[in-house]
């Protein structure tokens, strides 16, 4: 049954695009604040006019993927595209803010691949959980992360989790 209260991004695709482009622009703004860069400096880095930056900040609806990548790379960031299901098929709540996905990735320990994702997930499980797993130490380490093989849980996790830990 369709909702009587659709989110404004349901009006058409352009509105939905506008909203997600706005999320991207806000992430750029936040990064510029962290770097203490003015819009003018950012414009210089991109070899565009400051007016262009201001124009896009105020109206991001026509941002292309190419421009998003250029802008992100200019300040040391990367861009990812994802599709997701959020149990809101009639779009009553609008898109999930991209900042939420970024923070989840940070909270997951910045996994760079699926092995690290599984390993980080296992390491995060509470010692009082009801899963048993013996973690293989050497292969799970990487130059960027310190591995702590002291986690022991109390019942088997999924096969994937066990394989991931023993690679």
């Amino acid at each position, binding site marked *: 049954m369709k909702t009587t209260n659709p989110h404004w991004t349901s009006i058409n695709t352009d*509105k939905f695009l506008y909203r997600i482009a706005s999320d991207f622009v806000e992430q750029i703004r936040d990064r510029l604040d962290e770097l203490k860069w003015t819009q003018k400096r950012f414009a210089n880095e991109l070899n565009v006019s400051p007016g262009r930056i201001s124009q896009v900040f105020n*109206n991001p609806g026509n941002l292309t993927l190419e421009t998003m990548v250029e802008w992100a790379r200019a300040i040391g960031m990367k861009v990812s595209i994802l599709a997701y299901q959020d149990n809101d098929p009639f779009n009553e709540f609008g898109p999930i803010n991209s900042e939420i996905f970024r923070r989840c990735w940070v909270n997951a320990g910045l996994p760079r691949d699926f092995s690290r994702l599984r390993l980080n997930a296992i390491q995060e499980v509470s010692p009082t959980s009801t899963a048993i797993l013996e973690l293989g130490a050497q292969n799970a380490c990487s130059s960027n992360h310190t591995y702590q093989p002291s986690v022991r849980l109390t019942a088997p996790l999924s096969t994937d989790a066990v394989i991931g830990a023993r690679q």
Partner: protein
Amino acid sequence: MSQEKPCKVKIVTSPKHTKRAVMFLVEHSASFVNIEEAFCDLDEDVKDFFNVSFDYWIDSLERKHRYHGWDKSEYGGKYTECFVFKCNNHRLYGFLCHPKEPDDLGFYACVIVLQAEKNQWKTDKTELKRAEEMRQDPNVQAACKKAFSDKEGK
């Protein structure tokens, strides 16, 4: 004695949001209450900008370039419950309230009262005064509570 226009508010964000809502004061006898018509007359990209700001505000994101309130140090602390959404020189003035109290003291609403164009560096106190007047109007307060109790079938 002239009959007062009924007072009505409209929820413009998702009524199912559990923490916050943005509302428009759509009917009131005060002639300066113009938000519904003024919002419709805005350019599409300006409306989109405001809609994004409403989304961010109900998600409790801090975005001072899009919206803000006033603290006790400003205007003698008279307008601490007033609020403004901004886009270029467009300003949407309103006030903050708890329309679901006493049942849900944590639920927060921003009721937007009027749209104005800002041509000076400092906020025009007239708009703040008007927003505050609506905040204190018992008919407006009742309309805000009714908007949610109607939605919840109470």
